[in-house]
């Protein structure tokens, strides 16, 4: 009962935020907040696979693309019938469709490749991400490389900043529950030692696929919200889901500390804000990432938070300055 109340409260706040934001915040700030929220979803989702479960996916932009296209097609079909007044309903259905489609793609990619140990997943997901992008480019009804939708049509801009932040909260809370549950422990056990995890009764392949699918679904959801982002272009094209996007996601979780959910949140926000701040230098972002990662490896190879979570005691320790040194 209390939990239901908490959720209602959060929902109320988000609705209030959605309506108040336009009045209080500048368009620019709303835009940046929406981008941060999008990145948080992407980072938290990828962290479940690469951080918690210890697998390595470098093609998650593919799932984002599947979600975005599936969601956009759904809302395109519904919007005419339901009209703008039922926009939120359209958006919720689009979210469900996008997450589902990405989840199916997750099973199809994960089931064969997660059976194998080692680096196969990295190679398969890399290929998957590119194949999705290239397939979309060559499918006429999806608009090819021109993007979707075609002509003067546009995707309805139903995902205001409240929705974006709401999506980030939902994904983060659910995955936080999952990570710090019995299931999350099983996934971490797989990361630590697969043979021992099996001996402890964990069906490792099935659970890797499970984690991968959940992660793909959350990424798909992020894709839908991205497509409907009110501050975005109301248009998606395959180039938006290229390898750069996957690299962005990797940088977010490596920066925050692989395996740390709060680290992923911080990493997502960090990348969004710095990309925005360095907007003129977009073309150099791979160089900037390289410098950032090299610096990180020298100063804090485990990432900002390592595998730990942000906590009050951690913040307290930062405040009174350095304690005495020693190892």
């Amino acid at each position, binding site marked *: 009962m209390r*939990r239901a109340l908490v959720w209602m409260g959060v929902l109320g706040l988000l609705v209030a935020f959605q309506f108040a934001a336009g009045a209080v915040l500048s368009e620019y700030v709303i835009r940046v907040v929406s981008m941060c929220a999008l990145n948080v979803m992407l980072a938290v989702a990828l962290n479940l696979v690469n951080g918690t479960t210890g697998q390595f996916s470098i093609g998650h932009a593919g799932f984002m693309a599947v979600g975005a296209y599936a969601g956009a097609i759904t809302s395109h079909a519904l919007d005419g019938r339901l009209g703008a007044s039922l926009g939120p309903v359209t958006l919720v259905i689009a979210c469900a469709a996008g997450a589902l489609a990405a989840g199916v793609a997750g099973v199809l990619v994960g089931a064969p490749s997660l059976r194998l140990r080692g680096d196969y997943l990295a190679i398969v997901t890399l290929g998957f991400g590119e194949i999705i992008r290239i397939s979309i480019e060559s499918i006429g009804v999806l608009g090819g490389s021109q993007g979707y939708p075609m002509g003067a049509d546009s995707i309805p801009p139903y995902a205001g900043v409240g929705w974006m932040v709401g999506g980030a909260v939902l994904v983060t809370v659910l995955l936080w529950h*999952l990570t710090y549950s019995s299931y999350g422990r099983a996934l971490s056990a797989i990361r630590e030692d697969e043979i021992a995890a099996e001996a402890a009764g964990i069906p*490792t392949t099935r659970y890797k696929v499970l984690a991968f699918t959940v992660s793909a679904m959350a990424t798909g959801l992020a894709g839908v919200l991205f497509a409907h982002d009110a501050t975005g272009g109301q248009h998606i094209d395959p180039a938006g889901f290229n390898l750069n996007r996957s690299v962005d996601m990797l940088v977010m979780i490596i920066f925050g500390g692989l395996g740390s959910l709060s680290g992923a949140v911080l990493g997502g926000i960090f990348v969004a804000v710095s990309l925005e701040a360095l907007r003129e230098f977009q073309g150099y972002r791979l160089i900037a990432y390289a410098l950032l990662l090299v610096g990180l490896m020298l100063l804090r190879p485990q990432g900002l938070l390592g595998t730990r979570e942000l906590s009050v005691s951690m913040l307290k320790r930062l405040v009174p300055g350095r304690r005495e040194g020693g190892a």
Partner: protein
Amino acid sequence: MTEALLTVDRVEMVFGGLRAVGGVSFSVKPRSIFGLIGPNGAGKTTVFNCITGVYTPTAGEITFQGRPIAGKPAYAIADAGVARTFQNIRLFGTMSVLENVLVANHRASKASFFDALLRTRHYDADEAAMREKAMELLAIFKLDDQAEERASSLPYGDQRRLEIARALMLNPKLLLLDEPAAGMNSAEAQVLQKQIVALRDRFDLAVLLVEHNMQVVMGVCEDLHVMDRGETIAEGTPAVVQSHPKVLEAYLGSSVRSGPWVTTEPSPETPAEVVLKVDDLRVNYGGIKAVKGISLEVRRGELVALLGANGAGKTTTLKAIARLLPWASGAVQFLGEDLAKREAHTLPGLGMALSPEGRAIFPNLSVRENLEMGAFTVSDRAKVARGMARAVGLFPRLGERLSQAGGTLSGGEQQMLAIARALMSEPRLLMLDEPSLGIAPVLVDQIFEALEKIRKEGMTVLLVEQNTRRALGAAQRAYVLVTGEVVLSGEAADLRDDPRVQSAYLGETHA
């Protein structure tokens, strides 16, 4: 006759050309304690791996509670009630002690995936019950105080106990223990021996035990099965097996006779030059003071033993000397050189070699390559060849397996490789961390004989060893550590009969 819980029927496991297990049959009755023993590389761990689904046997049948399980996935076999520990400890290192145990309850948990995702009240109740049960199991092994610590930070003996606790969380009907007493001293082994019997009674399970500690094996097992090179060489009650000539020859060696294994003469009247001098060395792990000001000296041609219970700080001391751990304070001189300014990788060049606890074999390199890595700093080819010949002479098994990958060697074979690798550079100071760990009794004799020979040839040895009697029999001098401090030191001959040595151990154990 009661029906068997587990039947292993003509099981065979072939790796490439090697018959690791060549048709072994035995059966384990419910609530019995059954021992599987034999020399290093006999195939015991491989039998465990076949039973628990890590390998699918190349031939033969395995039946558990009347159902065939050979070739089933490992998690399904664990679900069915077969739990195990691993010879080379496999904990979930970065997870907490409590989480390690909780993982094994996941399948029994009644909360669904959606309960977990939404963190329902049902989930919370289930989790609370799970934690309570896990804490009870940890309490049996006196690990409840460390529940929130990282599993990898526990001392070796506690890690072994934690593996047993984790296995018990599966509610098994059959518990497979692969060398649970490895790395424990005799007082701790005694406690373990009682615990094994107590576990059987309390949890109503059968135990299949692989162990080289004969005190434990003879103390708890009702039936024994002895293997050598994949074949059965004897079976029966401990009394029968113990006096079986084949078993004596292939496995037990002198261990059935009880020491005193004194092989060495006392220190010479005029002391030789100091090779290693440690002065008030302190090492901390985070806030914990692991080594609290140790001073010791090792002279040329000496074998010095560093003794003490689990967690006393012996391994930490060796690692700190080898510069593998940072010092909080203190000084170490090696052949007159101040090690404070040295980095770990330069020490082999100076003439120091360490055979570390946990062996640190390169798993994907062959035995030959592993040995060559030990001579990395040696540019003289003749010396490398001499080292290789010595390694093979000391451990003929390694000679048979020069091209096998290090990671697939049996536990004892890996230990041989670690010792042989440390010897490759013909170091001035050889530091050995529990060389007898996981080694069959006959071979322990051989290793100590070899150490004596090496020492006579002029090498200096600093030895950490749980087998106190053995170590004091081989050493000239010894230091006894308790919780990071030297409490006793002197001539090994004097310490042999000193009751304080025993109490130094007992004061620390989980009695």
